[in-house]
């Protein structure tokens, strides 16, 4: 009896199972962010006349240096997206050594992003919004500016750390030779997730930092 391998059937869309599964997962994840961003949009549309609900201008709150630092952060994440794509191209071409290095750059890019994000959080919590931990301070603008900032960047940060671990697993698998050249699908799916995280950051960066 031929062993039934659990792979795409004859009538499949020609897409490997993993990719289809990852894309449907990304639909779900994108909707979670849609929930947060829609909440952010609604909280921001409060009419500013009611005292205490005026939304501050991000440039003043984060400071020009803060915005430029985050722009650098976005650029780093885009670079790690590029290195991921190169890693995939190398796997497709077959020389795993180069793919391994590209994947290492991707992981390093992710870690740098998390580092800068962590630095920014501590800076914001300690210096810009001391009211979070000591009630004597207070801020005249809408408290939800900080709330939505932490929710959106925190949730995205969680996704980036999961992505770094995911890439680390791929990297170790390649180093140990578990993943060979014809396991391109595995890396491609990891790449999909990483690009999705970068894509979401582009939107979050625009809404939280720039508008």
């Amino acid at each position: 009896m031929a062993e039934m391998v659990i792979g795409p059937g004859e009538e499949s869309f020609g897409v490997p199972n993993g990719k289809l599964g990852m894309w449907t997962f990304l639909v779900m994840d994108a909707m979670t962010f849609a929930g947060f961003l829609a909440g952010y949009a609604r909280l921001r549309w409060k009419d500013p006349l009611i005292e205490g609900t005026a939304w501050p201008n991000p440039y003043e709150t984060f400071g020009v240096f803060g915005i430029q630092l985050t722009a650098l952060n976005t650029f780093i994440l885009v670079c790690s997206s590029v290195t991921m794509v190169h890693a995939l191209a190398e796997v497709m071409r077959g020389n795993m050594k180069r793919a391994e290095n590209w994947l290492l750059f991707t992981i390093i890019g992710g870690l740098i992003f998390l580092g800068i994000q962590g630095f920014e959080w501590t800076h914001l919590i300690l210096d810009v919004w001391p009211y979070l931990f000591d009630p004597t301070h207070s801020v005249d603008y809408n408290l939800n500016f900080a709330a939505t900032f932490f929710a959106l960047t925190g949730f995205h940060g969680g996704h980036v750390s999961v992505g770094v671990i995911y890439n680390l697993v791929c990297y170790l698998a390649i180093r140990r030779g578990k993943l060979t050249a014809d396991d391109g699908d595995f890396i491609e799916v990891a790449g999909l997730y990483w690009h999705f995280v970068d894509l979401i950051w582009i939107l979050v960066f625009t809404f939280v930092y720039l508008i």
Partner: protein
Amino acid sequence: MNLANLPGFLAPLGKDSEKSLLTYLLEWAYTTDAKRIGVMYILFAAVCGVIGMILSIMIRAELATPGLDLMTDDLYMTLPGMHASAMIFFFIIPMYAGFANLIMPIQCGAPDMAFPRLNNAAFWLLPPAAIFAFSSYIVSTAPQFGWTAYPPLSNSVYSPQLGADLWLVGLIIVGTSSTMGAVNFLSTAFNMRCKGMTLFQLPLFTWAVIVMSFLVLASTPVLTSALIMLNLERLFPETFYFFAPEGGGDPILYQHLFWFYSHPAVYIMILPGFGMVSEIFQTFSRKPIFGYHVMVWSMVGIAVLGFIVWAHHMFTSGIGLYVRMAFMFLTMLIAVPTGIKIFSWLGTLWGGSLSFKTPMLFALGFLAMFTIGGLSGVVLASAAVDTQLHDTYYVVAHIHYVLVAGSVMTLFAGWYYWWPKATGRMYNERLGQIHFWGTTVFLNVTFFVQHYLGVQGMPRRYADYDPDFALGNLISSYGSFALAAVQIVFFINMFISFRSGERVGDNPWKDGTSLEWTIASPPDHHQFHHPPEWIPVERHHGDHHAPAAAE
């Protein structure tokens, strides 16, 4: 009943699991076989259904007579919320996921689901979520804010109890588990169909599961984000003011996010039911479905329209007049695809040769009473009338007609229909009919009365009411006790049948035309020894009795 002679996929795989029950159960726990995971979903959902039913009996017992005689309002206020969450999140949706796991891969001609281990993980998220949610009764007072959990009642100031946190975490985990299931169903349906089984040859139940999965994928995460926001606000009240007006937040935002999930969720809870009923009508009227393509596209229509009507749950929350008019008009349009489906079922029955086995009885009962639920929905949809009927017992009557006479009746129909296929044994027909007539009669006694209570102005979620409504509540309570009693007949029937029901062949209903009726019942571990080859045929009954399963 020793383990060795359990048939088909129920049979123990390993040698040692034949001897010891524990290893046999562990084998089930680690299984990646979709059919076994389906059975586990169904058993888990049945247990939670019983819990939900007990909670509903406590509610009706208290409401039987005016006056707080059985319990304090402290306990009573937890019951509506926990009854609803037990039934919605732990009974109906997992039960549909169970039948989908059991039947859909076979109907697609796939050997198993696309991601077997993810399938197992998705199931094993459910029991912890249920423990989280129901333990709120033991740990501290359960949440007293209904299953909708509107802030500021649900924030840390007005429901400080730990039970509320537990319930919220339980719900987030259930949401994740059902999205994991949805990813699996979509990948299987899109990618693992056997030769010849194009998208428009798929049986309607599989189509219903596809549309349900898409609804789950796009709506459940919005509930997860709303619950995460609520949890953040509960844990760090000085930092997060999403829904707290004093910090610039807006309680209506939570309602929007919640109902953006919950309206597609009610379609998640009915669409697989539509799929099951379409299958049953074809088999028991020996006639293909009336207008296959119209049925598929009306399901897709319901799903897409389901996303743009959510604010009809919030007509009285103070949203703008033109917003209400817009959402009211869209809600009116969503009744059209449902109407098409009901008329198409009538078209299927018309001119068929109907045999009244129990699944068919339940399906007909569904069709007769779901129409009442659908029409009371149309009455509620018109915003002007809704201002008088919102949050009264008219809404409770509509909910229960659509869910009990809708989803639960289809679940019973599906259960009786696929029971012989899943266990290889026939249930007792007489007990099945007693169960059907009991459920139908007492269901109407319980819930039709509530239409009048609602019109008279009796609000929802009340521990005690004005004695004007005493008679209606008395009738409704007696009806609900009898409804609960009748379900015992169902469980007896199933226990007897599993132990000593007479064995059935591959096609017990002799008219099943989809792929699951071509393989042994119960199917073996790998149900298709060779990839099956579906001959695209207009699914005729009669001359082309069973599709050729290439040996």
